[in-house]
């Protein structure tokens, strides 16, 4: 497998001990960020280009959003207020499930409950919406309905939704990357981008033991919450993004709901989902999962370390959740996953989760990609058609 810490491991030959800035390594395309979107885009690029490199800041791929954001793949149930996002999820769900079958956990039943008070949809609306996008929906059985507080819940539906095992998905991606011959460089933080000349972009990379410069014809900035960090350091215009410090609580759930996933729609509610990578459930709450938010243009582009000791909001999440599902009071808190979640400001208005694909941002052939839902990856390839047109020729 062509995985190295720096220095770069070259295909078909021995590794160079250090890349001299005077003799920079050059690639057809460099993808910054080894998350799911970064890896998949690198794989697409490899179909058209010879030398493709992934630069990842962490010591492994799929460590941040692809792991920490909730491991759900669904039919679009979450977006009754954004029919496009819902429909894309509905279309992409079966493709994702069949392509990554071995990473999918489908061994639980998924229920959607509709809140009576402050819900933005009614049970009828939700049902009609699911029928419109042709997503599976059935009334929940009586013994499931009994778990809920009737005064606060209007109705409960049985649906089809799966979780993916982020660890298995990581191994699968590593395997795909190796098979395709995509280079991967871990522990490598991109400091800045610079226009070398009209044909290439210089990428300044910092590793624990050295700094060097790589050149590439195309650069894909797939760093999710760090997109603006790189742009800012490269003196390129930043993109309006909203960041949230989010907390997912990991809990041991009581037996009767061990094989259930439950989401309460649609308002300041919560969701409890199996998290196969840890054999636990995640509890997330619309009101308490985001601890704070900021926009890059409000202040200087700031780095918030999601992992530095924040006070957990778990007591708040569980107190609210057990009002709706009393049995949740028996949950045991284990741990929390912290992450910086990034969304487009427009998503706040229409509740959609589109993928941002911004070509030639600040530099020619520099492309910023902000992934949305993991299974919407299939919406990206049409955007990469220009590769075919240029024939991948540098």
């Amino acid at each position, binding site marked *: 497998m062509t995985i190295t810490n720096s220095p770069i491991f070259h295909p078909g030959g021995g590794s160079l001990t250090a890349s001299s800035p005077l003799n920079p390594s050059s690639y057809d395309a460099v993808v910054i960020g080894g998350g799911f979107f970064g890896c998949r885009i690198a794989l697409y690029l490899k179909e058209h280009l010879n030398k493709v490199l992934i630069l990842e800041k962490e010591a492994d791929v799929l460590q941040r959003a692809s792991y920490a954001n909730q491991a759900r793949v669904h039919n679009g149930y979450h977006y009754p207020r954004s029919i496009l996002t819902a429909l894309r999820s509905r279309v992409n769900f079966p493709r994702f499930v069949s392509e990554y079958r071995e990473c999918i956990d489908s061994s639980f039943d998924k229920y959607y409950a509709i809140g009576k008070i402050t819900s933005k949809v009614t049970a009828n609306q939700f049902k009609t919406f699911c029928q419109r996008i042709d997503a599976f929906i059935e009334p929940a059985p009586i013994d499931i309905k009994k778990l809920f507080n009737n*005064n606060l819940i209007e109705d409960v539906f049985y649906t089809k939704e799966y979780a993916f095992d982020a660890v298995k998905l990581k191994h699968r991606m590593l395997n795909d990357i190796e098979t395709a011959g995509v280079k991967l460089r871990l522990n490598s933080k991109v400091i800045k981008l610079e226009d070398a000349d009209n044909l290439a972009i210089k990428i300044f990379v910092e590793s624990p033991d050295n700094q060097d410069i790589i050149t590439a014809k195309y650069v894909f900035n797939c760093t999710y919450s760090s997109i603006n960090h790189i742009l800012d350091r490269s003196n390129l215009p930043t993109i309006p993004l909203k960041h949230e410090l989010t907390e997912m609580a990991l809990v041991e759930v009581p037996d009767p709901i061990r094989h259930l996933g439950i989401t309460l729609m649609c308002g300041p509610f919560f969701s409890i989902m199996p998290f196969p990578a840890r054999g636990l459930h995640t509890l997330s709450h619309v009101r308490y999962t985001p601890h704070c938010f900021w926009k890059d243009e409000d202040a200087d582009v700031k780095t918030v370390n999601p992992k530095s000791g924040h006070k957990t909001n778990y007591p708040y999440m569980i*107190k*609210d959740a057990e009002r709706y599902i009393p049995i949740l009071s028996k949950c045991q808190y284990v741990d929390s996953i912290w992450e910086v979640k990034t969304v487009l400001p427009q998503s706040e208005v229409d509740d959609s989760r589109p993928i941002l694909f911004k070509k030639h941002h600040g530099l020619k052939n520099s492309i910023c990609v902000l992934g949305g839902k993991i299974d919407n990856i299939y919406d990206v390839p049409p955007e990469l058609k220009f590769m075919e047109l240029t024939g991948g020729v540098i």
Partner: protein
Amino acid sequence: MATYDCFVSVVAPLSNDARIVKPFVTEVMEVLRNNYANYELVLVNDGSEDDTAEQVCGLLKEYECIRLLNLSRSFGTDVAISSGLDSVIGDFVAIVLPESDPPDLIPDLIQQARLGYDIVIGIRNNRSGEPLWMKVGAKLFYLSCKSIFKIPLIENATQFRVLSRAVVNAIIQVNDKYRYLRLLSSYVGYRRKTFTYEQIRRYRRPKLKSFLETVDIALQVIVVNSVRPLRFASYLGLLASIFNILYMGYIALVYLFKDQVAEGWVTLSFQNAIAFFCISIVLTILSEYVGFIFERLKGWPAYYIAEEKNSSVLIADRDRRNIVKNSDNIQV
């Protein structure tokens, strides 16, 4: 100070309170931070027309664990509080009116609730500052509620109170547009305790309601919570009908035993007057109830939440310490 391992929610309705909301929130947050590990302050903006909501938005960036519920219009204090009760998550919930209730008392009240009293109700120690008609009217109101209408109201009770989770759960089950909380918390039962306190005046005098508004509320409380007026109408109707039957007998007797029945217009007038009097009373009461049934039949929600906002205290602020590096010599 020791922080207690219980979750405390504070509900405060806001109505054009822009001038007092900041000192109020500061005071409440100080009490909560000093006493409890987990807490929330739920501010319900009851359709304020001033910049109350903007003031609160500023506070959301400064303080943690505050939630703002913006109602779509003004629904009245009781509905505003009950919308807060529908969404609070605490083990104990304190209802506090920003204008008049002292937040310092919250820990004491919560402590009493922790000792097993599910409802701890505040009673104001005087009605000073109120006009005579209000004092007399209130006395009459409480007296009639107690003796005539059998409504279990506590004299001079205010909204300031602490409820346990059990009581909050009981109250939110009452699916009624008229949620007169002072009465509801009696109706649902549970162990109850009262305390007497002196109301404060934050910035301005608590706004007094006009005579008509007060009478309106009193009538609403009686009509919504008691079927006695309806029973009264029934008795009156029954009495009138018995009277009418007797009167018919009288007419029959006159017809049988009198030769000349020309005069008698006085009796006739009296009969008409009494009958119409009774009918009017009955109609009045009936119309009250028909109105109430109509409202209930409409089945409209008691309130709408236009938007909800939460504290977003940036991490950089979390470690902020209340320290100044310099002291300027300013004339005070």
